[in-house]
């Protein structure tokens, strides 16, 4: 027990001794939290849209007015000709252009269905698609207002968004960031541990000390675990107090989940560390492990959109489960029974990765 304590204290010193690395431990996660929070929005706002109005009628002008008034658009760029439109889109002065043909007003006056064209810049196809959704909605509403009888006959859909009624993007970003930043820091810190000893030549000293292998490994696991729980709790406070994201679940479940999640990550980090000869290799190795874990977790893009065989691969990704848990605990008031459904795969991954790390560590001791 005293040996283990000494090992843990030594590892904590190794992590916190150097002032530069101390700063690196705290500042990057906070910067990441702030930049990610504000930058990672798939909302489309403040964009410029071009208008090529060939009808110059009352209804056309009203439609353009309504688009201009919507908060998603920063302004309207009037385009006098088709060529002007081509240039404006090519040079990315506008992301889309609305084309209103000359018979638009007459068709509406006659009570026929009218149509407008929307040219989108496919270089930013995602933003363009979202924007096309806004334009269709505005046009649809105006059309329904012009012919209420038809609108009634075709019915409508009532849309409700649960857990996040106004679809505030930060309510998605901040809980997810707890998972992302904790995993980046967790793997990065753990991967340095064994590699550092090897590079500095102190690994052999560790081997000839009376410490047993499991004591060395546990000693190396404690500091990243503490850092992870500290960061997770800090982000929880920032998200709820500074950004007003609701936390509807249980704090005890949150800590328990972080604990199991960190175990899985630390196992991966130790695997990388045992495989590396230098700190640089360990850093790059952790990078190469972390990026696919994040991209396949469902944070960057929905898992449903991936090809089926890749979806199967995501079941091995610990972030996948933790992401569901944090989103659930923050917004969905997720009860313990459901949390456990996502926790046991984490426990399995942790058991596998930790045993693999211990095995590799022993195998490379000679």
């Amino acid at each position, binding site marked *: 027990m005293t040996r283990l304590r000494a090992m843990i204290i030594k590892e904590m010193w190794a992590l916190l001794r150097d002032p530069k690395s101390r700063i690196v431990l705290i500042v990057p996660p906070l910067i990441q939290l702030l930049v990610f929070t504000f930058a990672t929005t798939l909302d489309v706002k403040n964009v410029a849209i071009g208008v090529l109005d060939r009808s110059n009628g009352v209804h056309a002008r009203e439609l353009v007015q309504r688009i201009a008034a919507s908060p998603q658009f920063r302004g309207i760029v009037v385009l006098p000709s088709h060529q002007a439109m081509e240039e404006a889109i090519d040079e990315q002065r506008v992301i889309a252009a609305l084309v209103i043909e000359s018979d638009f007003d007459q068709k509406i006056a006659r009570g026929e269905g009218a149509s407008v064209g929307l040219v989108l810049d496919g270089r930013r196809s995602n933003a363009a698609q979202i924007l096309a959704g806004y334009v269709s909605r505005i046009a649809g509403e105006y059309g329904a207002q012009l012919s209420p009888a038809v609108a009634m006959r075709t019915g409508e859909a009532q849309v409700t*968004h649960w857990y996040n009624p106004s679809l505030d993007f930060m309510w998605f970003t901040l809980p997810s960031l707890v998972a992302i930043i904790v995993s980046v820091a967790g793997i990065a810190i753990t991967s340095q541990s064994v590699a550092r000893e090897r590079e500095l030549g102190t690994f052999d000293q560790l081997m000839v000390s009376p410490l047993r292998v499991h004591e060395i490994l546990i000693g190396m696991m404690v500091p990243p675990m503490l850092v992870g729980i500290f960061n997770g709790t800090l982000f929880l406070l920032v998200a709820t107090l500074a950004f007003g994201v609701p936390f509807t679940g249980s704090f005890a479940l949150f800590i328990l989940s972080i604990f199991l999640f960190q175990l899985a990550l630390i196992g991966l980090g130790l695997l990388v560390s045992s495989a590396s000869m230098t700190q640089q290799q360990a850093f790059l190795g952790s990078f190469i492990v972390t990026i696919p874990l994040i991209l396949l977790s469902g944070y960057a893009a929905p898992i449903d959109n991936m090809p089926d065989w890749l979806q199967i691969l995501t079941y091995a990704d610990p972030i996948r489960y933790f992401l569901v848990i944090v989103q659930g605990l923050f917004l969905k008031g997720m009860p313990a029974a459901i949390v456990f459904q996502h926790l046991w795969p984490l426990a399995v991954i942790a058991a596998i990765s930790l045993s693999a790390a211990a095995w590799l560590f022993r195998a490379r001791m000679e």
Partner: protein
Amino acid sequence: MSEGDKTGPPVLQGSSRRRLLALMVKEYAQIRRDPSTFLIAFAMPMLLLFLFGYAISLDPRATRIALVVQDESAAAARLSQAYVHSPYFHVKIMRTVQPARRMMQQGAIRGFVVIPPEFGKGVASGRPAPIQIVTDGTQPNQANFIAAYADGVRQSWMAQEMETRGVRGGAPGIDVSQRVWFNPGLQSRFFLVPGSIAIVMTMIGTLLTALVVAREWERGTMEALLATPVRMSEFIASKVVPYFLLGLASMAVCTIIAVVAFDLPFRGSIFALLLIGSAFLLPALGLGLFISATTRNQFVASQVALLASFLPTFLLSGFIFEIASMPWPIQALSYAVPARYLIPALQTVFMAGDVWPIILPNVAILLGFGAGFFLLCFRATKRSLD
């Protein structure tokens, strides 16, 4: 061989060229020997291209939803079929809301659609009750998509329904017909893959350079090198040229893979691509050298390089996230990110062609950044000598 240089006169033209060559040969040998170069310049690009080409797709497909059918009518059954056959949804049909509610909380479905009782009667009498679309708001982007597409399925079903019954004037008031230039299939891969090439070039230019040079500072071999008659400009050139070439080579390989394996169009010229790539590598390399000269520690250099280059390229370049949608301080910050000027130029060369009014200003700004970073490098390295 450097022994000879040390004793020889330091300012002869011929020996200067030989020194530079020798330094580059040394750098090249180091690049070849070092496994991290292999990891960054080969393994990472392949991994990123693969992930952005296959895994990360913003194109919705088979999103799991539930369909709660509370009406026994034929019309409700036909509408259910429309949902089942939609390529955008993977539908589970149920009779009550209770299981759907539970599945939402579990995360097993992303939303559900309720076809209310009496729906069929309403359709027949020309006053259909509204269907309900409920989404999981924890993922706002997907929620928006489900709301729009689920309603779209209903609308096109309704239009068809009215047509078969011969109801006149059923067309909706104003229809928006879309045309997408450069990427008619709206494949997110088309903009994600050029973006991942930008990330690869950032990694080679900044991360790899920062790491390798920081290691030399850490081990003290840098001081040894600076004690030789090597001039500052030669020294920096010897560091820059090999990584510059490595960056361009990697860009070329990525471009070939993008076009051959991922079916990306390449509508611009190779000259324009080279111009853009070279212009970007200058600030990237300058930043990498600057980081290594100021930190002189591998771990810190790697963290700083991640924060100063990888993350901004990923987040603030307009690669995935629209800069215009960000709050103004973040938008202001994005102007200081070189990748912000690379991304539009790169996307344009791939998808649109050589649109010089986009390419040239961006290239000019990148060159400006490059000059700035190299100036900082000179100062940071010089200070170390005294």
